[in-house]
């Protein structure tokens, strides 16, 4: 029989500590939509998405109501569009048409984002890949719900530096085209190394080609619950600290597992994975930065931050893995800046710099996320920042990512306000020494050696 204390604990997590299921994401393969001309391909894409996900939002809301736990986002991910549009898109504008179709399909289904306007170019770009990347500024500026990602590197292939160079330019152009909307286009685009095929979180979700026709992936969250649990073990040993995080992560992930299984059953779509991430929101108390403070740092970014984050990330995985049979996606602590109030505070206090964030991404999921930089930052500098982050992922055999927003017309000390779950970002200073000649080289960085680990 269920115990009243357990019931009270669960409901306190939901009411006071922002426990929620962050997203139910339906992955849909669009490979069977390819053929004919652009118009008929778009029609088939629209039809497949809207038929497959017609009940997604309704079922998500029903499950949320029945269990009394908020399911914040319902989303869709699709096959990387560079693969889908390869045979019918002859220009970048053709790809933009597919982006608009995705936008319309997402709106019809009532989801708040659709991911997969993507290209996988870790070793090289096909003509279609390059057209899609060149279409990004227009595609992101003319759609509302479409999220995009490009995988430019992997541990097995190295880093495609031609793509890194091109993406630096496209990020600047996207920011320019969306400058009247807080440069929002860049908030919907992420560049990856070692991108997973089953990530349910935006902006990087896409439905990998290794996946089944349809799949349900669920992203759990709960930084507020972890922080609240840690307030009770202040001053205690690392053993007690780790045990507390593990137990809490287990409980959070079990809720995700329940929701995922139920959603898969009701939608008659196989359950894929649970992404056991600590994903913060701008809500007070729902912050990874605050967990780091609770572990014992004045601010995120203080000396000790990387070690504290490594410990946190590892314990979240250890607790979460036991709670679900299938764990995948990004799984770890996210450290976005704009979406986490205490991370914003740390930047504004001068405690947290871009370089420290880069170090932190070595030990956690995923990368430099939602970071605003001065609008006059050069495209090559952006490419340099991306290349650094990709190298960390490549060498350390982990997923890394960059979602960076040049704040057009703004400088250090200003803010970019995105609103909603994306929050606001203080513009961070960037090292302005040149990497032009490095980024100007063509070709790719070779895959690293997989032995002689030091």
């Amino acid at each position, binding site marked *: *029989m*269920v*115990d*009243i*204390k*357990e*019931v*009270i*604990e*669960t*409901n306190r997590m939901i009411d006071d500590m922002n426990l929620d299921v962050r997203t139910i994401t339906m992955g849909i393969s669009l490979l069977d939509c390819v053929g004919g001309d652009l118009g008929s391909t778009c029609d088939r894409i629209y039809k497949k998405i809207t038929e497959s996900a017609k009940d997604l939002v309704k079922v998500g809301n*029903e499950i949320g*109501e*029945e*269990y*009394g*736990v908020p399911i914040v986002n319902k989303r869709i991910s699709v096959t990387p569009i560079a693969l889908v549009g390869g045979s019918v898109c002859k220009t970048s504008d053709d790809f933009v048409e597919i982006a608009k179709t995705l936008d319309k399909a997402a709106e019809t289904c009532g989801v708040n984002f659709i991911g997969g306007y993507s290209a996988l170019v870790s070793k090289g770009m096909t003509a279609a890949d390059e057209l899609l990347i060149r279409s990004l500024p227009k595609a992101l500026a003319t759609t509302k719900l479409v999220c995009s990602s490009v995988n430019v590197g992997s541990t097995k292939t190295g880093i495609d530096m031609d793509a890194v160079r091109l993406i630096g330019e496209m990020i600047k152009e996207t920011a320019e085209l969306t400058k009247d909307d807080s440069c929002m286009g860049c908030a919907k685009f992420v560049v990856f190394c070692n991108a997973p095929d089953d990530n349910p979180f935006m902006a990087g979700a896409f439905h990998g080609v290794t996946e089944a026709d349809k799949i349900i992936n669920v992203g759990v969250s709960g930084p507020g619950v972890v922080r609240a649990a840690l307030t009770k073990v202040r001053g205690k040993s690392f053993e007690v600290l780790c045990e507390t995080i593990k137990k809490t992560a287990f*409980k959070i992930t*079990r*809720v995700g*597992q*329940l929701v995922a299984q139920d959603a898969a059953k009701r939608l008659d779509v196989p359950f894929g994975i649970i992404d056991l991430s600590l994903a913060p929101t701008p809500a007070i108390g729902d912050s990874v930065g605050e967990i780091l403070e609770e572990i014992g740092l004045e601010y995120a970014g203080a000396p000790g931050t990387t070690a504290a984050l490594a410990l946190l990330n590892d314990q979240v995985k250890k607790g979460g893995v036991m709670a679900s049979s299938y764990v995948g996606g990004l799984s770890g602590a996210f450290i976005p800046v704009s979406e986490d109030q205490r991370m914003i505070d740390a930047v504004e206090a001068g405690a947290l710099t871009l370089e420290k964030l880069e170090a932190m991404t070595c030990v956690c999921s995923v990368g430099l996320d939602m970071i605003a930089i001065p609008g006059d930052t050069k495209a090559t500098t952006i490419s340099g920042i991306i290349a650094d982050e990709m190298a960390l992922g490549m060498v350390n055999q982990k997923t890394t990512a960059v979602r960076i927003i040049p704040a057009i017309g703004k400088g250090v000390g200003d803010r970019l306000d995105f609103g909603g779950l994306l929050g606001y970002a203080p513009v961070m200073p960037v090292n302005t020494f040149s990497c032009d000649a490095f980024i100007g080289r063509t070709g790719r960085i070779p895959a690293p050696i997989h032995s002689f680990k030091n």
Partner: protein
Amino acid sequence: MKKTIITVVGTDKVGIIAKVCNYLAENNVNILDISQTIVQGYFNMMMVVNAEESPKDLSVLSKELSEVGDEIGVLIRLQHEDIFKMMHRI
């Protein structure tokens, strides 16, 4: 049998249980167990019920119970028991 958990949280006063039980009886919801406790000065009650025989859907029961709660100034919530079992049992 699918069990459902009803929780009532608020300031203690006369008639809370009566009001909730009346509503459940009217809607053919069977009460299997009741327990209550005071946490940080707040009255907490938990009922384990079987709502399978009720003519109303869980979502309707949930909404109406919440309205009953509003009338008497307490928070009433109806949830499927699986969320608690999953979270606290291996």
